[in-house]
C-alpha cells in the first residue's frame, strides 16, 4: 500500500509537482547562500542582470487535482507554473525586494537559532523598512513567496507556526530521548500538537486503534476525550479546531502512513464550511502553498450528513449565511468533490439551513458517542 502511494507520489513529482520540504536550518541557510551567490554571479556576469525570482504560483489556476488511479487518494497540488518577481517591473519591484528582506531576516534568525512569530517578524521589518512592509499581510505574503522560492516549509525558515491541533486516544508518541506520551491519558484537553514539523517527523508512533477520527470542533473533541470514547471504539481522535494547520495535517499524514489500515473518518458540522474543512484534511488547499499537497489523506465523511438530519431538533437549524453559499459555490466549482459529496452540498444549499454537531446533544450527552459508534459499526461513511 505504502509502496503504491510512493509510486503515485513519485509519478507526479516527476511530472509537475512542486513541493516545499521540511528542511533543517543548516540546509535552509545553504539554500539562502546559494541564492545570494547566484544573484551575485548573474549580477557580475559578462552580460550582467538582476535575476528574476521564480516562484511557484499559488493560484487556483496553477492547482491541479489528482484523483489517484492506483489508490483512493486524491489531492490538490500546485503545478510548476511560475510567477516571477522581477525588480525590473516597477509594480513588482517592491515584492522583489521584500523577498530578499525577509530572506535576510530569516537567515539571521536561523543563525541565532531562534524562532519568531510572524508578528515579531513584522515588527522587525517594519522597523527596518516601513515603506516596504506597511502591514502584516505584506509580511505573510512574502513569507509564502520565500517558501515558494526556497521550497522549504515556513517552519524551516525559523518562523514559529503554533499549531492549534490536539490529539487524544489510543496512540503513544515518543520523541527520541524523551518519555513516551500516552495520548489516552492526556485528559479531555488532549495532547497539543507541536508546530515543530521537524519534531513531528521524528516522533515514534504506536497505536492499537482501529480508527482515526477527525473532529471539526475543539468542544466535541473535549467531549469525546472526556468520555474516553477512544476506549469504546478503539480510535485516535484529532482536531485542528477548524481549518487544519500544517502541523496537524502532517501528524495525521504520519499516522496515516504509519497505520495505513486505519480508516480516517471525519465528524463535521453540517454546513459548507464543515465539508471544506474535511476537504482541506483530505486534499490540502491551494492557500497552504507548496507545503499543502503532500499530506493528503484519504478521509471519509462520517457525519453529519443529510440522512442524519432527522436526528436533529428543529431549533438546532439556522439559515445559511451568504458566506456559506460562497463556500458551497467554491466547493462545487473546485472540481474536487466526488459525486456523493456534491449531492450533499446541493442538499445544504437547497434546504437553506445548517446545523452544528452539538445539535446531537439534544438526545443527551452520551448520544454523540453512540451516534459515532453506530455509524462506524454500520460503515456509514463515504
Amino acid at each position, binding site marked *: 500500500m505504502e509502496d503504491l502511494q510512493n509510486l503515485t507520489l513519485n509519478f507526479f513529482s516527476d511530472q509537475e509537482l512542486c513541493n516545499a520540504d521540511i528542511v533543517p536550518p543548516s540546509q535552509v541557510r545553504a539554500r539562502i547562500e546559494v541564492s545570494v551567490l547566484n544573484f551575485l554571479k548573474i549580477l557580475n556576469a559578462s552580460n550582467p542582470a538582476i535575476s528574476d525570482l521564480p516562484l511557484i504560483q499559488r493560484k487556483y489556476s496553477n492547482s491541479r487535482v489528482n484523483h489517484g488511479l492506483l489508490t483512493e487518494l486524491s489531492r490538490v497540488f500546485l503545478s510548476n507554473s511560475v510567477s516571477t518577481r522581477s525588480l525590473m517591473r516597477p509594480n513588482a519591484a517592491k515584492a522583489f525586494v521584500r523577498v530578499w528582506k525577509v530572506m535576510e531576516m530569516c537567515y539571521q534568525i536561523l543563525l541565532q537559532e*531562534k524562532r*519568531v512569530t510572524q508578528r*515579531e517578524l513584522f515588527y522587525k521589518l517594519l522597523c527596518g523598512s516601513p515603506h516596504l512592509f506597511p502591514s502584516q499581510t505584506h509580511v505573510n505574503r512574502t513569507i509564502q513567496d520565500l517558501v515558494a522560492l526556497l521550497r522549504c516549509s515556513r517552519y524551516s525558515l525559523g518562523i514559529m507556526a503554533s499549531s492549534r491541533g490536539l490529539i487524544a486516544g489510543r496512540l503513544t508518541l515518543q520523541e527520541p530521548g524523551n518519555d513516551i506520551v500516552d495520548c489516552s491519558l492526556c*485528559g479531555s484537553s488532549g495532547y497539543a500538537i507541536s508546530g515543530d514539523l521537524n519534531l513531528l517527523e521524528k516522533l515514534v508512533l504506536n497505536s492499537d486503534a482501529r480508527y482515526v477520527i477527525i473532529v471539526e470542533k475543539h468542544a466535541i473533541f473535549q*467531549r469525546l476525550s472526556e468520555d474516553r470514547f477512544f476506549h469504546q471504539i478503539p480510535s485516535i481522535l484529532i482536531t485542528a479546531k477548524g481549518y487544519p494547520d500544517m502541523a496537524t495535517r502532517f501528524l495525521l499524514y504520519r499516522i496515516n502512513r504509519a497505520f495505513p489500515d486505519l480508516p480516517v473518518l471525519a465528524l463535521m458540522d453540517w454546513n459548507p464550511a464543515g465539508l471544506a474543512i474535511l476537504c482541506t484534511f483530505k486534499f490540502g488547499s491551494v492557500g497552504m502553498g507548496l507545503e499543502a499537497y503532500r499530506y493528503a489523506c484519504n478521509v471519509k465523511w462520517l457525519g453529519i450528513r443529510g440522512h442524519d438530519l432527522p436526528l436533529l431538533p428543529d431549533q438546532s437549524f439556522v439559515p445559511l449565511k451568504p458566506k456559506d453559499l460562497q463556500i458551497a459555490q467554491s466547493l462545487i466549482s473546485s472540481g474536487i468533490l466526488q459525486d456523493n459529496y456534491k449531492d450533499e452540498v446541493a442538499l445544504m444549499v437547497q434546504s437553506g439551513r445548517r446545523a452544528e454537531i*452539538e445539535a446531537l446533544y439534544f438526545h443527551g450527552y452520551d448520544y454523540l458517542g453512540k451516534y459515532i459508534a453506530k455509524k462506524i459499526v454500520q460503515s456509514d461513511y463515504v
Partner: protein
Amino acid sequence: MEGKRTRFPSESQPQSVILLAKIKEFTRALLADLTNGRSPLILIYRFRSYCAVPNANCFCASDLPSGKEVLTLRRKSHAHRLVVMLRVMLVVQKLLQENKHSSKRDIYYTYPSLFLDQSVVDQAINDICILMQCSRHNLNVVSAGKGLIMGWIRFSEGERIFDCISSPNTAHLVPVHVEEVQDWGETLPNLCIDIISVARYILVVEKESETYLLGLSLILCILYTKRFLRLLVENLRLPVYCLVDCDPHGFDILTTYRFGSMQMAYDTKHLRVPDIHWLGAFPSDSERYFVPNQCLLPLTAEVLLIFLLDKRKVEAMLLRCYLQREVPQWRLELKLMLQKGVKFEIEALSVHALSFLSESYIPSKIESEVSRR
C-alpha cells in the same frame, strides 16, 4: 451575605449534588407558581467590579451586590431570557447528572435558533451562577479558550502529567478541569509543590512567543486562564507579573486579572489575582527602550472610527473606580497612553534584538518591581 457567595459548601455533599438540588427546587417553585396561576418572579442580583465614579465612596471592592434585576413573564425581553436561562439550566442539569463538562460555545450550538446569540447564553450562565450562588465551573461549564503554559513546572491533571520542564520550548495546554488539578494537589500536596518550586515567579503574557523565556526560571501563562492562574498563585505563592501589549486591550486584560471582569463580577473574589504586578509594556517604555517611531501605532490604525473607539475605551477605563483607589500609578500610565495617543505591541520592544525581552527587558523590569516593594 457571606452565605450567598460560598463556593465550597459547608456540607460534605459534593457541589454537584447541591446544585442539582437547587435546580430542582427552582423548577418546583416555578411550577408551583404556574399551577397556582401566579406569574413567576425571579430575582437576580447584580454585581460589579467597578463603577465609573473614580472618587465616589463606592462599595465596588466589597463583593456586595450592587443592584438587582427582577425577571417576570410580563416583559418580552424577560420571557426570552427566562427561556434561555431555563434551557441552559436544563443543559446544566444534564451535565451535572451525567458528570460531563461542556463549553459555552457547545451550549450555544445545541440550540442556536432558540438562543439567537452567544452572548445570551453567556448571560444566562452568569445569571444561573448568581441565582445558584456558585462559580461557573460548578455548573460543569468549562472555558474552551486557549491557555498555554511553559517553563519550570510539572503538575498533573487526573492521570495526565504535565511536564513543562523537559520540553521548555513547548507550550502546553492548560488543563480544562482545573478542579481536578486542585483536588489532586490537595491529596498529594508534596509532590505537586516540590516539583513546581523550581520557578521563581509567574509571568502572565498576552500572547505566545518563544522570545520571552530563554534562561529564565519562570512559568508562563497565556490568556483565558484566570482560574488556573489563581490556583497556581494559591499553591505556589510566587510573585505574579503581567506582560501585555501597550494598548487598551492589553490594559483591560491586566485589570481583569487583577480586579476581575464586570461580566463575572459575582465571582470576582475567586478569580482575581490581586497581587499581580504590571511588568509592561508601559506607555513610558516606548521612550525608555527606544521603540522606533514606525512601530508606534497611533491610537487609530488610520481609521477615525477605530481611533475614537480606542480613545473612548481608554477614557472609559480611566473612570474605573479601582484604578484611582488601588493602583493610581497604573492610572497615570494609562493617562500617558491617552496623552501620547500611540499604542504598541510587545513585539515592538524586540526589534533591536531578538532576545531583548528575555535578556534585558523582563529581568530589569522584575528587578525594579522587586526593589519597589
